[in-house]
């Protein structure tokens, strides 16, 4: 299977959040499908963590130029997925087609992924002791369908396809907006955004000037995450050096006696 990607187009989005609603419905349908309660039960339970794509409301800027900003929070499906690298229980799997899947039944609730994620995506539910995040409806993808949120989007602001198709569409849209709006547009995630994450399988098209307001950091660095990766590399190198020194001194010592 070739690599797949999602596209979120900030300009086309009409802020109806049908994607978020549909995501919650789809995940409840999955619970019913997996025999974890009948339809009434799974719909009656309040499970906010089952909406893997959801709006976060905040205000950007300061008075008098302040404006409400709605960030659409969802998993970015990073190329290098720091969460998958850190998960001690191997509950996070990176599919060969690029989707990062958190298997709920393997999760031990240690929250290492929360620490690892530069986008604050994984959502921990203390009641179940499990962490939840978007898996891009990998079951639907494998069955040849689009993810649920894409199906729900009435403005075609969400677009799903192979990576090539999605990047082509993203650049086409960005170019079109630039031409008509006279503003610079960026395709966020098409290229590497940080050392820890690599490129993203969920790319975002938006006006370059506002990307940061929507919590899309052009260099998605987060000091501690990059520093932890660095210390883990340097640490093993130093351990190798110390082991080499020990072996060297041991060989040097062979056959030698202490002189009085």
């Amino acid at each position, binding site marked *: 299977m070739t690599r797949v990607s999602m596209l979120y187009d900030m300009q086309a989005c009409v802020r109806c959040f049908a994607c978020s609603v549909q995501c919650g419905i789809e995940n409840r349908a999955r619970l019913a499908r997996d025999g974890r309660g009948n339809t009434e039960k799974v719909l009656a339970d309040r499970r906010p963590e089952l909406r893997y794509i959801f709006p976060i409301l905040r205000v950007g800027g300061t008075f008098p130029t302040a404006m409400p900003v709605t960030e659409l929070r969802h998993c970015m499906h990073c190329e290098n997925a720091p969460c998958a690298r850190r998960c*001690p229980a191997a509950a996070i799997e990176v599919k060969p087609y690029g989707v990062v899947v958190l298997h709920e039944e393997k999760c031990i609730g240690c929250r290492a992924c929360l*620490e690892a994620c530069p986008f604050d995506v994984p959502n921990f539910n203390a009641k179940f002791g499990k962490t939840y995040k978007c898996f891009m409806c990998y079951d639907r993808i494998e069955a040849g369908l689009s993810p649920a949120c894409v199906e729900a989007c009435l403005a075609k602001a969400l677009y799903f396809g192979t990576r090539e198709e999605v990047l082509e569409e993203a650049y086409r849209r960005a170019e079109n907006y630039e031409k008509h709006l006279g503003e610079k547009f960026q395709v966020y995630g098409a290229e590497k955004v940080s050392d820890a994450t690599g490129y993203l399988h969920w790319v975002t098209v938006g006006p370059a000037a506002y990307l940061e307001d929507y919590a899309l950091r052009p260099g998605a660095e987060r000091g501690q995450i990059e520093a*932890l990766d660095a210390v883990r590399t340097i640490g093993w190198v130093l351990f190798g050096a110390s082991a080499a020194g*020990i072996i060297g001194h041991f060989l040097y010592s062979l056959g030698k006696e*202490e*002189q009085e």
Partner: protein
Amino acid sequence: MQEIQTFNRFQRTFHMHYLHFMFVFFLTGLPQVAPHAFRWLLYFFWIPFTWFSPETTYLSGGMKVAMVFHRLAGLGLIVYAIPFALREIKNMASWQIWPEGGMAEGIRELLKHYIGFKPANFGKYNIGQKFLAWTTIVTTAIMIVTGCILMFKDAFEPNTWRWARFFHDVGFFIFLVILPIHIYMALHPLNRKGYRAMFETGTFPEEYVKTHHPKWWGKLQRKL
């Protein structure tokens, strides 16, 4: 032959049990610090646990057991380290790990002993041991503080967890680098008397102190 006390009983038992705690910390911590390389360790924690929880896998069940052991060992170390630290602080005046004679001389004597295989002009501890002692004290403190933050995550912000995880890893790698050297030096034939003092008698023969630790001998003479 007369013997001179080198380590008291509390120091020797604390050292011994710190060794046991370290063993548990490493076995249960490695699958967390390098999951892809050391996950297989979890299998051994999981096997007895399957009897209680047959639906788990070696990854989920084993990791949970490992984390519980890691925390219990941490708790044990903290409980044990407090009286030890208090007693050592009380006896701070007799510590032998303060710098003496300068860096260059310290390294020269170290090379004389370990490369030249000749008795060198050491105090009770050589410069390497002093460095090790201070590093261990500081790193243990870092590990306890950051470990408590990671153990009681709910009381802190994710950004604090990230810094705590970073320094917990820094501490781990400091131990990973210095402990093999410490163990190798302890087992080296040049240091047989040191090994005997720590694990068997707690004492050095007087003659050995005169020849191998002349600076310390001088101090002991002045004290008498």
